[in-house]
């Protein structure tokens, strides 16, 4: 069962000639973590905005859960989909952390008593309870992104989309956000879609979709797609560490099994060889 399905989507920004997405059909399996990778301008972010109904395709149909994404269903769609955007500052609406988490709840007219508990729970989930009254100017980028995630969790969506959400963070902040996502995945309540250039982020996902010039050129389980180092180099994304090491060994004429290696697997394989 797919949480999100796109059928024959064609999208083009008004007053431009470039087709951003060209006849794209794609499904996102329920409860899995899918990363979308590709060049800048390959249509990744557009795809995320289409799923949430923030943009309307010229052609094709999108369904989220069992709801078709149309103008009338917008409220239902927004309830099921939560997006974390790239810039931590530009999505922080509230004057304090708690206020920001409350923003989505206020929009949904959640009564105040229920709001309190939901804010507490979602801040606890991202480990930001102590900073509930902090102002955005006092927070780091990673903390702001965690607040953004809390704001989404409070709304109890089925699908969480991360649109390069870790790209403006420092390595420590990025790691914290990724750990948080891994935790969320184990709860199996959410379908995660992340758009990224970060090799570490793609390596921990379940599935990878490669977009290039508005078309899907490859999709499948992480181990299968990331095995193709040439493809990764061609679309200009980073290569996960285990895979990079494997390639380096192969280039020096050492025979390494032609399969996907995570960092851990590479360490184990090397230990066996020694």
């Amino acid at each position, binding site marked *: 069962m797919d949480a999100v399905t796109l059928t024959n989507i064609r999208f083009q920004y008004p007053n431009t000639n470039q087709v951003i997405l060209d006849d794209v059909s794609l499904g996102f399996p329920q409860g899995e973590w899918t990363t979308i990778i590709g060049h800048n301008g390959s249509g990744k972010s557009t795809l995320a905005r289409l799923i949430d109904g923030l943009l309307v395709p010229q052609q094709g149909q999108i369904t989220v859960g069992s709801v078709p994404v149309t103008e009338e269903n917008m409220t239902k769609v927004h309830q099921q989909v939560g997006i974390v955007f790239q810039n931590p500052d530009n999505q922080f609406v509230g004057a304090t952390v708690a206020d920001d988490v409350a923003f989505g709840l206020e*929009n949904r*007219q959640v009564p105040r008593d229920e709001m309190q508990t939901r804010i507490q729970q979602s801040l606890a989930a991202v480990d930001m309870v102590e900073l509930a009254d902090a102002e955005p100017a006092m927070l780091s980028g990673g903390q702001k992104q965690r607040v953004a995630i809390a704001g989404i969790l409070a709304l109890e969506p089925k699908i969480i989309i991360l649109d390069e959400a870790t790209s403006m963070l420092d390595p420590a902040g990025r790691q914290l956000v990724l750990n948080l996502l891994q935790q969320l995945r184990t709860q199996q309540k959410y379908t995660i879609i992340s758009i990224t250039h970060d090799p570490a982020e793609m390596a921990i996902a379940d599935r990878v979709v490669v977009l290039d010039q508005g078309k899907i050129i490859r999709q499948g389980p992480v181990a299968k797609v990331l095995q193709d180092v040439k493809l990764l180099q061609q679309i200009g994304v980073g290569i996960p560490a285990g895979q990079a090491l494997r390639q380096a060994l192969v280039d020096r004429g050492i025979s390494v099994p032609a399969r996907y290696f995570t960092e851990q697997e590479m360490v184990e394989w090397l230990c066996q060889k020694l």
Partner: protein
Amino acid sequence: MNNKIVFGSYVPIDSPLHRLDPRMKLLMCVWYVVLVFFANSWGTSLWLLAALLGAMLLSRVSLRQYWQGLRPLAWVIVFTVVFQVLFSSGGKLYWHWGIMSITHDGLVNSLIIFYRFMVIITASTVLTATTPTLRIADGLDWFMRPLKFLKVPVNQITLMLSIALRFIPTIMDEAGKITNAQRSRGMNFHQGNLVKRVKHLVPVLIPLFVNSFKRAEDLATAMEARGYDPDSPRTHFRQLHWRGSDTMTFILMVLVTVILFLIRGGLL
């Protein structure tokens, strides 16, 4: 950025005045400004000054901090007072040169203006020093509620206000970054005459504006994604609590007013 207390900034300490409901403080401030215009004698003026001093003491903000808050406005006050002294006429003439003259009425008028300026600015500083801007916005929201019946988009206005307040530090920060970026390319902001210095601000302001528009667009998308619809009703997370101390303050305010009018009417 400088850490000096500037006019209107919040002083984060705990005091009886800090704990009051922002609605009460707003009402008090506005009411006080109205009262100042009813002061017509030494007695009434001193009585209101005493009330203000009482509030300042209750706020536990030091007089020095208040003075620092007032100082940037000192020039405006001095200019207005000097203007009043030199250009108003009436009463006994003490000195004159061309169109300028010092007269008895001019001196009295300027004294009144000086007094009004000082107490009104100080009173509003008491409000802003004891109330975070966001709480003031909440209070304003409450006072504007009746306007909803006149189809005034009160909710949108308050949300706009609170977003504007929330982005001030972000945009200040950005201004600092752009200034440094321009400086690293050899721009000297402290050189040349006034016109030149103002011209130097252009390469800071343009990127700042462009970025602000980008931010606004990002923010609008993010708000939409979180289900914001300007036309539908919303619940409110931040609530205002009217306590006993607020009622007490209200009674005090009425007392101050009654006594003022008693002094004014010559009954005290």
